[in-house]
């Protein structure tokens, strides 16, 4: 990792002294609301001590803040200056305590997808819920459900599903089957982008926005998700259900990072140092039009 760090300087000096991985990890952290140190280590492709050192750098610039919000390693989130440096207009707030487990689960899912060869070869990119919410703004209807993330597969990518857009849902707790089915229908029936004119959001007859939906669920939520999928009818063909990786559990990581080792399993494996999706934006800087 190349880090060009200045011995001192004002916090408003800009992203000087930050390497590519720092920038990618900051963008990742910004889009996921916050990140725990062990997952940050996976993003950076190093160990927890290296992640801690990176966080210290960010804090020196005033770009990030860190703290122990819940069980497990410390959490890192970007400050207003950090978000401004990343060029995103999100509210500079630490991750909500009630959402820590969910944020960790979604981050784990994103890392697991990004670790696969197909994802990297295809140059797929991730649009997180925070970005979708910011894009939708006040136009997001009260009843509108935002997925936890979207994976966009560019056209011409060397995968059979090139050109598709997937909706990603991380399910930790059990909802009612009716509610879950309704969410599935909404995800699979949506035709417009988030933030598009209201009348375009779901227009029967137009191609759906999400070619398929991927539910990555905990053991507790799996029965409900499976029953909801059964109730979907023909739409079930576009729904995939998988188990959350073991690292997704917040409580399972209480001792993670203390020994300075990266997490096991798919989370830390195979992440390319120049992972195409870590910045959470399309490679060409464009977003799919509504």
């Amino acid at each position, binding site marked *: 990792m190349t880090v060009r760090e200045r011995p001192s300087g004002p916090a408003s000096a800009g992203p000087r002294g930050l390497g590519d991985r720092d920038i990618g990890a900051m963008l990742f952290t910004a889009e996921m609301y916050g990140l725990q140190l062990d997952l940050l280590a996976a993003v950076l492709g190093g160990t927890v001590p290296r992640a801690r050192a990176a966080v210290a750098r960010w804090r020196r610039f005033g770009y990030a803040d860190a703290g122990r919000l819940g069980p497990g390693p410390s959490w890192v989130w970007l400050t207003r200056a950090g978000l401004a440096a990343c060029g995103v207009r999100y509210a500079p707030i630490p991750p909500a305590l009630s959402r820590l487990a969910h944020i960790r689960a979604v981050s784990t899912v994103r890392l697991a997808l990004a670790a696969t060869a197909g994802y990297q070869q295809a140059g797929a990119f991730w649009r997180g819920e925070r970005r979708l919410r910011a894009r939708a703004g006040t136009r997001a209807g*009260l009843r509108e459900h935002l997925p936890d993330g979207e994976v966009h597969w560019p056209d011409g990518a060397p995968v059979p599903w090139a050109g598709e857009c997937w909706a990603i849902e991380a399910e930790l707790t059990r909802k009612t089957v009716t509610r879950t089915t309704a969410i599935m229908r909404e995800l699979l029936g949506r035709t417009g982008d988030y933030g598009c004119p209201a009348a375009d959001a*779901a*227009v029967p007859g137009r191609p759906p926005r999400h070619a398929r939906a991927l539910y990555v669920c905990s053991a507790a939520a*799996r029965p409900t998700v499976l029953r909801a999928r059964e109730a979907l009818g023909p739409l079930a063909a576009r729904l995939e259900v*998988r188990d*959350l990786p073991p690292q997704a559990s917040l409580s399972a990581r209480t001792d993670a990072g203390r020994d300075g080792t990266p997490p096991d399993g798919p989370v830390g494996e195979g992440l390319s140092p120049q992972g195409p999706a870590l910045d959470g934006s399309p490679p060409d800087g464009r977003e799919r039009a509504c």
Partner: protein
Amino acid sequence: MLIRQYLALLLLRAAARAMWRLVKGAAVVAVIVAAAPVSAVAAGAALTAWACGWPPRRLYGAALWCLPMPAVWLAASGLGTPGGPGGPAWYRVAGAPYQAWLDMWRLGASGHVAAAAVGIAPVAIPAGLLIGGLTWAVRIYQMETGAGGLSPTSAISFDRRQWQRQVRSARARIAAPGSVPLTYRNGSVVVGGTIRAVRHRATPITALPYDRLRSHQVVIGTTGTGKTTLLLRLWAGFMATALSRQAAGTGRRPLLVVLDCKGGADSRRIADRARRVLRDAGARATAIWPDDANLSLWDLPPGRLTTTLLDLIEHGRGAAAYYADVMEAIVALAVQAPPGPPASSADFLARLDADWLAAAYAAGDAETLAALRSGAHLIPDVALRFRSLWRRLGTGFEPAGSFADADAWYCILEGTAETSVAEAQARALVDMLAGYISGPGRDADVLLAVDEFSAVSRRVPIWALYERARSLGLAVQVSAQSWPGLAADEDERYRIAATAEGGIWLLRTPYPDPVVGLAGTRRYVDSTRRLMGSPPVTASPTAAGQMWAVPFMAAPFSAARWSGEGSSQVRLMPVLDPDIVRGLGVGQAAYVHQGGVTYVQVKRLVAAPAALPRAAARQAAAPAPPHPAAASAPATGGPAPGIPGPGVPAPGVPAPRRPMADVSAFLDEAFGPAAGPRRSGSGTGRPQSGPADRETRTLDRERP
């Protein structure tokens, strides 16, 4: 001598009368001056009510809202040291108004006018508002009964000007941004500002309880009067309230189905506007049939499907009844064949083949085979008729699509350009909606709105639609441009209007008389007075609403003056004034319900931006390329193995789409093996239940 005495007596009487009037006037002036603050507030309130066209009730309400002010003021006056100056508390409270009055004059005399006004305000404002309201009520009563005014035309002018002021106030009331919400918290649907209410409660804003929208309603208004604006508001209100009730667990899922039986470009513009308005009201999806979405006729149960298919074809009478029976037998054989009901029009047309039917019923009973043999020579004719029918109907009834796919369906029927096609479509849509509602587990609050249904009601009489809707528990909203447009004959029109429990909306229309009759009458006092200074003609000004309609008749008497003599009697007059209805402006409507009428200035809903820019709309109108995600079309209902498949592709049958790629290996790499049952391949149909899933269900049942 006698004459002189008589003249003196007359002079004395006149002098006494003048003196009495002088004393009375002086007393009134003295009271007004003595109670100057109250008089000023009362005069201001009455003038404001007159200028704004407010009902007296509004001033009474304002007086009531001011009551806390004198209550606090009196309480403050009563506070003080017991036994101190001013006596006990009750004495100070009782004397507070008098003291305030004295203080006001004292302060006013010393030039402290503002302090005097503030000191007397707690008493003067509520009292003034109350007196102003009473004065205004007396004035209205005098003008309505014909007992007031300087000339016979006064009442006419008064009512005409009051209507103009009321309209101006209602427009101003709804013009402020955010002043008129779509719904109230109690679920009532807000329509607009109240202009005038007759035998209805006069509230500044007209709101309809949700139950009214769940009942049958009738809307009549010519083009350009704001009928679409009113309908959109009612639909959006229905959608918003029903969704709120559903979210609160007190209601069912809403479903709005609009049958626009005019067709053409205008209907499509309204459909786009409806889609945007409904989206803002909370509807997730609004489908426009048949432009954007299909409704699959082939999802109907076989028995109902047979009936609907037969109803789509016109039958003759007399000798043609024989062919109708034969057609019914052939269609029943094709639909109820052993492989299952047809999945599409192409599948159905392929079945109208003697060889196909013979192969399908090879193992059938002798009676079926005999029927098949006897009607075999007519099968090509039946096939020809249905082939022509499907060519004219288009692709709107092809798979896949159901009323469950959207919260609202806007169905455009070309009733003007292609009447026979629209009639068949209307028939099928009504059957499909009935089939959908009566299906298991389809609990929904349905509002069926039909516009100009008389254009397509030859096969589905609208009264039959009403009765059917009533039996299915759905509300029907019938709208037309005129009274004759409601239904084919007068009996049907009266039946529809008389059973509109949710009320009748009347916009500007030249022929409101039938609805006026249905709205009923009300009693009023008709005063007759003698005129002076003109020929001895007795003018009988009726109630104000009728008077201003005949200004030319009253014009000859405009120079005359009333005498003090006359009589009054109770008469009946229509609740709904037909002349007001004939003169309603754009966006004004009369809502008739339960013997009363409320005139409303409808608040226009501002929808979200247009659905698509023009370039995108043109692109959307072009044939869309197949999308890999759209491969979810149900694969059920196809011909069984061994049965000849559809040989003739029906027009509009969706082109085969690229199957979805299998992502199992990719996801296995990321997350490990699949959770629950594995499917044979993504996008190939409904997932099969596996042992793991059965185990899951067992565990679920064991949980409390």
